[in-house]
């Protein structure tokens, strides 16, 4: 058994609550601050400097997924528009099919793997892949799939095809739906 071919995944989800203030301060979102101050930095406009809020994050467990416990290609990938992460109407049937698969195989789970094309920048693409995977997870939640049945993973543009046609590039803007047998 080749160790390098193993994927590890969460088995035990330990809720780690880090210390900090419980009262989360209101602060303007990026959208709210977007309009003005388009030119240059004006330090006097920066407000609410002191209170970094507590973070509630769940640590990744040490559980393992064996490659042989993954089924790739049975469920179709969900495609996205350039720089977008909303689930298009035409793609929703694929998530419905994933839901039906889980109903028929209640012992299985899904790994939602987000991807981006190679244009843009690596770190931002990692975020975009993350957002796409979470959009798929959120849509599955809306149609009744329990959140614990899905794991998300972003690969950003790390596996993107670079010497392809624009059609091949659009194939990189996707979420793979991988079945986890355990």
């Amino acid at each position, binding site marked *: 058994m080749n160790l390098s071919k193993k994927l*590890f995944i969460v088995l035990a989800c330990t809720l780690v609550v880090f210390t900090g203030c419980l009262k989360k301060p209101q602060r303007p979102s990026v959208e709210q*601050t977007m309009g003005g101050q388009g030119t240059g930095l004006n330090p006097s406009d920066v407000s609410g400097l002191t209170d970094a809020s507590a973070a509630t994050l769940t640590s990744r467990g040490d559980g393992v997924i064996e490659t042989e416990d993954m089924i790739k290609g049975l469920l179709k990938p969900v495609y996205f528009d350039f720089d977008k992460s909303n689930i298009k109407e035409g793609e929703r049937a694929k998530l419905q099919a994933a839901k039906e698969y889980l109903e028929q195989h209640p012992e299985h789970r899904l790994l939602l793997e987000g991807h981006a094309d190679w244009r843009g920048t*690596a770190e*931002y693409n990692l*975020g975009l892949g*993350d957002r796409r995977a979470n959009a798929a997870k959120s849509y599955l939640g809306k149609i009744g799939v329990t959140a614990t049945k899905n794991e998300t993973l972003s690969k950003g543009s790390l596996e993107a095809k670079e010497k392809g046609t624009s059609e091949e590039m659009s194939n990189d803007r996707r979420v793979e739906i991988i079945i986890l047998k355990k």
Partner: protein
Amino acid sequence: MQKLLQLFLVLVLGTVANQSFAALDIGDVMVEGSNAIAIQVSGASGELDAMAHQAFAAHGAYRRVTSGGAFEIRFSSVGANQVNVQVIKGGSVILNQNANGTSTRNAFYRAADAAVKATSGLNGFFAAKLAFISNRTGKDEVYVGDLFMGEVKQITRDNAFALTPRWSPEGSRLIYTSYFKSGFPDIYLINLANNDRTKFASFQGTNSGARFSPNGLKVAMVLSGEGTPEIYSAPASGKPVSRLTRSDAVKSSPCFSPDSSRIVYASEPGPQLYIMSASGGGSQRVGGGLGSYCAEPDWSRADPSKIAFTFRDGSRFQIAVLDLKTGQSKKVSKAVYDGVEPNWLADGRHLIYTARAAGSRALVILDTESGRTVRLGNISAEKASVWGPQ
């Protein structure tokens, strides 16, 4: 005022020795401004002579001449790992210094940095170190080397995707993102003295984009464990983690200001660049309206008024510099395909970036004032960061 006298675009296709780069036609841009300092450089040995010409050819403040230069700069080896530099102006020696290094090569770069300081007043950067990702083995791994890609050492052998190795301020550790072991993006810290690796952040979701503050006390990073990829910070020990941003927008690439008090990062929509206090709070959009896509900011430690970033320029990507004094941004790179992932060097004037084309990556040095662009080394390299020299 445009003062360029000459502009030569030298296409290096066919002159790059390494076959793995045969496909990449990056193009060195050899520009000489009228205010470039004319120098005669030489080394007492073939090795020193070659290094001296390579180094000063990459520095946009100089032009090399065979006679009549404002300065004559001579290098000679004077002992094990020790190089002497003499700077002569009008017949008199104005600098005569022995530089020690970890090797003759390293000592040469330190000596050359002293010569740069003496002749231009600029901080030297030749003795900087790079950390970068290369896929030369077929897999992404972390490497370190000197600025001209000499003395390169492979640090990881993980057979896993890896991103953005970044130096700790004292230069003894690297913090980076790897899919190593878990198959998920986690943040690790590598101690270069003993190659010991510890997990820094491993939460559900994506853990990426980690950078130390220049004072070494904090690490900023991007975590998606609470839903959207947001900016967080932690003490250098890793705990506790504080969330700094809160909105329904993908954030990436946090970078501290030189005094460690503020953070610049990229955020949707766009993305565009924002600055906030290093302890969170309101964000201020910056960028001067250059392009609909601005990402990967790098705040110069030598010149706190400058932030370099990557922007979309038509169908390509190029490097721009935001001047915080004026609020205006200016395109500075002329990459033949894409220019991405800028990192400032110690003079606040030159930077390195990744020249990117489909299937090809290389690091280049750019003088943001003259536009001179020279490729560093000939191995596939990207996602680099710079340390020193100190």
